[in-house]
C-alpha cells in the first residue's frame, strides 16, 4: 500500500488537507480536488490506485462524479465518503461500481484498509486488461 497514489475529493479543504498529511506520513502519494469537475480532470490526467470521494459536494454530486469517473476509466476504484449514508444512495453507488462506503468522521485505519483493497483490485483489473490486449494482438497477427 505504501506508495499508492490516492485522490481525495471533498469540498472541505481543511478535511482533505489534514487527511492528506496523515496519509502522506504513511507513505501514500496524495492529491486533492475540491469538487467533482476537478476530480474528473485530475483522474483524466493521471491514474490513481484509489479515489476517495465525498458524496455531497457543490456542482457535480458525488454520484454524478462517480458515474463520470467510471465512464472514462472502468478500472478506477472509488471509495465513497459520506456523513449520512442512505440505503438508496448506497444502492445507487454500488450499482455505479463504487468499491465501498466509509462514513465520516472516518477511521483512518479502516480507510487505509479499503485503499489497500482498491489498489489490489485495480492491479488485477489492469493486468487482466493488458493480458486481453496481448491476446487480441496475437490473434490478429498472422505469425
Amino acid at each position, binding site marked *: 500500500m505504501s506508495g499508492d497514489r490516492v485522490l481525495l475529493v471533498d469540498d472541505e479543504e481543511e478535511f482533505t488537507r*489534514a487527511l492528506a498529511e496523515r496519509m502522506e506520513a504513511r507513505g501514500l502519494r496524495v492529491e486533492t480536488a475540491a469538487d467533482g469537475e476537478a476530480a474528473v480532470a485530475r483522474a483524466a490526467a493521471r491514474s490513481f490506485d484509489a479515489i476517495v470521494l465525498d458524496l455531497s459536494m457543490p456542482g457535480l454530486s458525488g454520484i454524478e462524479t462517480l458515474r463520470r469517473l467510471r465512464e472514462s476509466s472502468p478500472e478506477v476504484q472509488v471509495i465513497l465518503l459520506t456523513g449520512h449514508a442512505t440505503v438508496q444512495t448506497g444502492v445507487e453507488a454500488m450499482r455505479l461500481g463504487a468499491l465501498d462506503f466509509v462514513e465520516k468522521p472516518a477511521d483512518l485505519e479502516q480507510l487505509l484498509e479499503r485503499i489497500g483493497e482498491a489498489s489490489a483490485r485495480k492491479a488485477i483489473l489492469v493486468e487482466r486488461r493488458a493480458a486481453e490486449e496481448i491476446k487480441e494482438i496475437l490473434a490478429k497477427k498472422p505469425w
Partner: protein
Amino acid sequence: MNAPDGTADREPALAFFGAASAGLSHEINNVLAIINELAGLIGDVVAAAERADVRADGARLRAVLERVSAQIARGKEQVRLLNRFAHSVDGPTGGLDGSEVLSLAVALGQRAARLRKVALATVAAEAPLRLPGGAFEFLHLFHRSLGLALARAKPGSGVEVRVIEDAGEAVVRLEVAECAPTADAAWPALLAEAIEVAARHGARLDTVLEPGQPGHVSLRLPAAPGAGPAGEGGPRGTRGA
C-alpha cells in the same frame, strides 16, 4: 385541500424542517470529521517523536491546535444556528426580531447555495421586516423562495437578499445576478409547491427569471397584525438557551 388534522399544511413544513435539520447536521458532522483528522495528526506527531525518542515538534503541534480551534468556532456557530432554528417554533416569533429571523434564514440557506455554487448575501435592509406570523413560518417561506432562486441561478453567480417596503407591505426580494440558460425538469413542480405554501400563509410569490438575465423572486408578506408602519419585530418571546 387540508385534511381535518392539518396534514396537508404540516407536510411541506415538515419537509422544510427535515431539510434544514439535515443541512445543519451535515455541517456539524463535517466539523467533527475535520477535528477527528486533526486529532489524529496530533497523535501522529507525538507518536513520531516517541519513536525517535525526541521532544514533539511544538511549533507544529501549536499550528494544528490553531486549526482545531478554528473548527471549534465553526462548529459552535453551527450549533448556535441549530439552537435558534429549534427555538423558531417558540411563541409568536421564536424570541427573534425580523432582522434576526432574516439573518437566520440566510444562514440556513448558505449550504444549499454553496451546493449550487451560488454566493448568497444579504444587502442592508431598506425597510424593517415585520413578521406577520411565527418565525418558523417565515423561515419556511424564505426556504421555498430561496429554492426557486437557486434553481434558476447560474452556477458561479450570486443571489442578494433585500427587504423593501411596497404599498405598506414588506417584500423580501431575492435578486439573482444571472439566471441559468435552462431550468431543470423539476422547476414547474417546485414553483407550484412554493406558490401554494405562500398562499397558505397569506403571502404571495412573484418570479421574474429569464434565461441569461438578472432576475428575482419576491416574497410579499401580509401586513403584520398590530404593527405600526415603521415598527420592527412584533411580540417578542423568550429566547431559548
